[in-house]
């Protein structure tokens, strides 16, 4: 086990170093820099050069790279180039918000999509095509709607027409009600797409299992249809579903970037977009490494859960 963990850790280290290097250099390949992004429309070239010096952008590239690696080793995320704020503090305040959105979405998705998908599979299995077609069809359409579009539609409908949720305002983590009120819409927007994806996968997986011998055996033992479906069929169909949950966490992190922009949520997605727009290398570098770590962790967790679900799986 120790060897396994060490091996994994060495892999993680190499991967991270690769990500760090790649991110560092590709970021600087994008034309323009923090100074010209900051300056806006009416700053002269000479004044811009002063600003560039002040931001430390005139140092040689390799010097910047060495400084950056050194600071990473001691886990110093540094300050944003443009605004001189602590990157660590910014991430610390933004992270809970994004995690809350992502986890809420996953919970809602699992709670809604698995029964729906199972139901659709059951109907399809029984040859009752109507409900199955309805669920699958709707899922298909919702799945294909981009979240920047659903975001705007939901904003118009739930915020402007129904006035249920605000379009703007603080996300104050110490006030749970305001948090719920503010985050409900973005979570809903993300969940709609996720539910659609996951319901389709669940349907396919369960449908495949429903034709198996042990299901017939379970039925012949006189178990109720519900028990057969959820105890026997679903459990055996769980592997692909867990894969999708793992993957969807990844796509959710992408999704949060968009909904955070539309709904003005100060999460890490917003930080990333702002960082890129303002060419704040320090901010973007650290965030991308952070994202990479999240992905690696999720993959790791998915592996472990695989093992639990199916003892035949080995690494």
């Amino acid at each position, binding site marked *: 086990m120790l060897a396994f963990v060490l091996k994994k850790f060495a892999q993680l280290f190499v991967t991270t170093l690769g990500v760090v290097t790649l991110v560092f250099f590709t970021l600087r390949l994008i034309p323009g820099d923090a100074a010209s992004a900051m300056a806006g429309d009416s700053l002269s070239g000479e004044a811009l050069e002063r600003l560039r010096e002040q931001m430390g952008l005139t140092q040689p590239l390799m010097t910047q790279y060495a400084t950056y690696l050194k600071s990473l080793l001691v886990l110093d995320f540094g300050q944003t180039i443009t605004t001189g704020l602590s990157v660590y503090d910014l991430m610390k305040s933004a992270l809970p918000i994004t995690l809350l959105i992502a986890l809420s979405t996953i919970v809602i998705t699992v709670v809604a999509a698995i029964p729906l998908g199972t139901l659709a599979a059951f109907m399809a299995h029984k040859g009752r095509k109507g409900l199955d077609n309805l669920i699958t069809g709707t899922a298909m359409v919702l799945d294909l709607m981009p979240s920047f579009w659903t975001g705007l539609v939901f904003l118009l409908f739930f915020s402007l027409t129904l006035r249920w949720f605000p379009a703007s305002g*603080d996300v104050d983590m110490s006030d749970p009600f305001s948090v719920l009120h503010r985050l409900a819409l973005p979570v809903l927007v993300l969940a709609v797409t996720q539910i659609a994806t996951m319901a389709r996968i669940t349907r396919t997986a369960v449908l495949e299992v429903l034709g198996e011998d042990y299901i017939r055996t379970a039925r012949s033992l006189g178990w109720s249809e519900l028990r057969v479906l959820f105890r026997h069929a679903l459990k055996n169909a769980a592997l692909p579903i867990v894969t999708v949950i793992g993957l969807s966490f990844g796509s959710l992190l992408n999704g949060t970037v968009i909904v955070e922009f539309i709904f003005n949520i100060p999460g890490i997605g917003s930080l990333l977009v702002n960082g890129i727009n303002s060419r704040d290398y320090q901010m973007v570098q650290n965030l991308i490494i952070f994202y990479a770590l999240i992905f690696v962790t999720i993959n790791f967790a998915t592996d472990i859960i695989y093992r639990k679900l199916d003892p035949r799986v080995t690494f």
Partner: protein
Amino acid sequence: MSFARRQFLSLLAASVAVVGFAVATPAPSQAQDKTLKVRFYDDPAGFDPANIFRIENENIAFNIFSGLTTYDSKTGKIIPDLAESWDTDDNKTWKFNLRKGVKWHKGYGEFTSADVVYTFNRIRDPKTASPYAAELANVAKVETPDPYTVVIELKSPDGNFLHQVANYHQGQIVNRKAIEDAGDKVRWNPVGTGPYVLDFIDVNSRIVLKSHKDYFRGPAPIDTITFQIIKDENTSTIALRNGEIDLVMRANREEHLETLRKEGFRMNKVENYAVALKVLNPAFKPLADVRVRQAIAHAIDYDTINQATAPSMQKGTASFILPWMDVYTDDIPKYPFDPAKAKKLLAEAGYPKGFTVKHLNTSAQGVTELQQFEIDYLSQVGITMKMELVDTPTFNQKRNAGDFEFATRLLPAVNPDTILFNYLHPANASPKGLNGARYDNPKLTALLEGARAEVDPKKRKAMYAEVQKIALTDLYYLPMYANHVIWPGKQKVAGVNINYLGQVNFFEVDVK
């Protein structure tokens, strides 16, 4: 480990709760004080006057700091601020008599002439690396005969000097102790003498200003102003219609303005805020010929285009200078829409079949409606205009380097000299300054420098008129339109007087 797990569990519990209770949540209750919620449209970049950029940040600083002088919101005229009065005999030695008993924010004591010296020296100190140092390059020395008098000696006379010490950029007076206390966080800890104090800032969500109770003109009517960061304009329009905010800082989309106007919102507006110019770069051979430049001016009907594309945001103009400026004149060369004449001029210049020209623009803006019309108008005289779209930082870089054929510029200023000097003086030729066409006409340069030094207002005005005539004949910069700035708000929000820098002095704003 267990801590992390507990955090994870509480997050999970909260996630589940989102589903259940979100709809039932009541709106947060309002505070007792008089408050105002304003949309802020970008990430705040800090409020250190020596290193401040972009109008939205400048608007916050405008309400925190004071200058020796400031601008009247409605007329754009220079009026007293920290200086009660001033005098000069030769535009070279300026004596300012300061207000007494002015209090700094946050208990930093009383304002005196020493603060003025500190401020200007800080701007000029190379260590500060202020991009506005050049604005004070003409200052020879700053003296303080007593705590309430400042005497500034210039190297050469400047009739526009009062603009340089106004409540804007380098002119905003700071407090030495406050700057030193803030260390490397000066931009986030502004301490001024203005009507509002920076109370709280979360760079990701909001900026909160509180009324400065000891403000020298008396406390402002509103106790708390919250600037809510809302970047997307669809969202900010909905937030205003929903009543979540009271005022929108700069709305730019014609369709939203239309909706808000119909729904009875107050359309606070300043007209002729700045002139947008097309820069015709003579480094691109056809544009080196004055006949070609004039042909382009005759070929495009800017009045009609602006009327069609953005009637509430902008209108066609023939001048660099705005009608409210004292040196404005209507006696300038004009280029009425005349495609036949344009063709004739092109033929004379040796381009009877036209040519192809590239227009630099940001991909964020894309090909604007105005540019679509330009492409069409120019094609009718044989000129093919192609768009070169790049991202904003690249755009700024290329434009600053003079690496383009057509580009645009918009330079908001109250001081007409700022506009003329920046665009037309060879000392400001790109890549150093904003003179992207590298325009250099010795006769005009001499007039510009002469006008600065001239004490007699009449003669000065005549010189500036001559400058405009020459520049618009040479036509390296083609005026396209003057634009307007609009802040839609609720009817009950009164006194939103947008000044000619596109800023609002919140001291004048009240909620009825």
